[in-house]
């Protein structure tokens, strides 16, 4: 047997190099496809104008309940975009490989699955910061809504939602590997199933009774419940945040397991021929 070639970097350094290379590859995609900026600039702005106007309209009634609702709407839509941006950037990052028939090129390289996901997620976080930045500035400029007035309690809530976004995208990628690009509609669709069930803009007791147990099982419900506590100036409800955090990590692990299972099936059944 011949000895393997001498490599220049340690395994850890090579791994980090690969993740950065993947992130840079997706940066090129964004910079050189201006229409991709829609997701991180215009769409957040549209949402903040829509929900901010709704909040302003509701707020004119002057009762304490309606004032609360307007705060829920604006804070809810800003934090909703944490899930949206993290999910969409990771899902479309992978879908970019299928749209451009680049999957085989990528799969024959030494890139490990976890490195690939980490690289795309790394650049996804840049996109998320851009998108949330646009929303925060839009909410401030148009509706005088100071998102940071909610305090540092926003950070653990945002982290939880970020993890949920990644979990959903791993699940979507798994489905695309299994069923082909026809399943990519789920990249956008799944989010909007979660939106009403998670009580993004209202307490889940407003949901039909039959749906409430399902809502309570979602980590996002507890995250947005904690957010409403911040809007109501009750401080951060650590119980809700802990349930949301544990639920989101469990969701991520389940999604990672599902993705690995689908990738194994992808290799076993030779589905790569769909993309060559």
């Amino acid at each position: 047997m011949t000895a393997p070639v001498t490599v220049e970097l340690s395994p850890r350094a090579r791994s980090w190099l690969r993740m950065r290379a993947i992130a840079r590859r997706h940066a090129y995609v964004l910079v050189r496809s201006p229409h991709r900026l829609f997701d991180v600039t215009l769409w957040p702005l549209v949402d903040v104008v829509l929900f901010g106007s709704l909040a302003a309209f509701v707020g004119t009634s002057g009762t304490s309940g309606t004032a609360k609702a307007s705060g829920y709407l604006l804070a809810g839509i800003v934090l909703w975009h944490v899930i949206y941006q993290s999910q969409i950037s990771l899902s479309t990052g992978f879908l970019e490989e299928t749209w451009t028939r680049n999957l085989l090129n990528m799969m024959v390289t030494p890139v490990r699955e976890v490195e690939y996901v980490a690289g795309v997620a790394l650049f996804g976080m840049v996109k998320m910061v851009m998108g949330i930045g646009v929303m925060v500035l839009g909410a401030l400029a148009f509706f005088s809504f100071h998102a940071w007035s909610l305090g540092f309690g926003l950070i653990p809530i945002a982290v939880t939602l970020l993890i949920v976004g990644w979990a959903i995208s791993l699940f979507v990628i798994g489905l695309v590997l299994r069923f082909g690009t026809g399943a990519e509609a789920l990249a956008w669709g799944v989010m909007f199933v979660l939106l009403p069930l998670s009580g993004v803009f209202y307490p889940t007791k407003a949901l039909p009774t039959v749906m409430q147990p399902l809502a309570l099982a979602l980590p996002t419900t507890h995250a947005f419940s904690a957010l409403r506590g911040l809007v109501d100036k009750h401080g951060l409800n650590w119980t809700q945040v802990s349930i949301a955090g544990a639920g989101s990590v469990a969701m991520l692990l389940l999604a990672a397991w599902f993705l690995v299972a689908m990738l194994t099936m992808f290799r076993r059944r030779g589905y790569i021929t769909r993309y060559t």
Partner: protein
Amino acid sequence: MPAELVLEARGLVKDYRRTRAVDGIDVLVGAGERVALLGPNGAGKTTTLLMILGVVAPDAGAIAICGIDLARHRSRAAEQVGFAAGYLPLTERMRVREYLRLYGQLYGIADPGPRIDEGLERFRVTHLADAMGTELSSGQRTLIGIVRSTLHRPRLLVLDEPTASLDPDVALRVREGLIEIAENEGTALLMTSHDMTDVDHVCERVLFLSAGRIVADGTPESIAASYGRGNLEGVFLHLAGNHEASATQQSDHP
């Protein structure tokens, strides 16, 4: 058998639903050896290559690249392999140099710049370094794909139809470049091709696949002689005829 095995694939089997695409083959390639994997459409060539690349899992058998078990250590094994195919696109929205830099880094080269220059020069495409991938002709894309596959100086270079869609002069340049890589760097080549000129010029050993099995293994001359044909093309046509008759249900794809 070659003394130093770069590729050791034994007992490979792959079934797609009710079709057996690859039926218990061994593929052994030594350092610096130049091997062609030939056969008619549906013979199992691409499936075999995809298994060797770790993209399709064999149903039975084992693959080792430079002694590294592919099933257990895919990433480490993949560092030893380069792959190019005439049908593969270049990553979109990147200039050629950016694209090569990306893939150099994916193969663990911190500063791929000098190797990019060397590769572009070897295949005489330095003038394309700043072009966008979408501006290239299919032949130019193939050349850049080959440069990409050799950046990390792989021990095994796998090529699927490397000269498909190339003009004769460019195909000649590719053949010369590949021979130079094998001779100067000790890189083993495993390539498929439907162009027997490629095989005659580049390869010193031929594996003929038919209906998922290796039906001939030897030098181009010895195989042609054993089938009583004047050249490899004659053998190919003979085997393709048999394959059509006996395996109409076989397919290379699931």
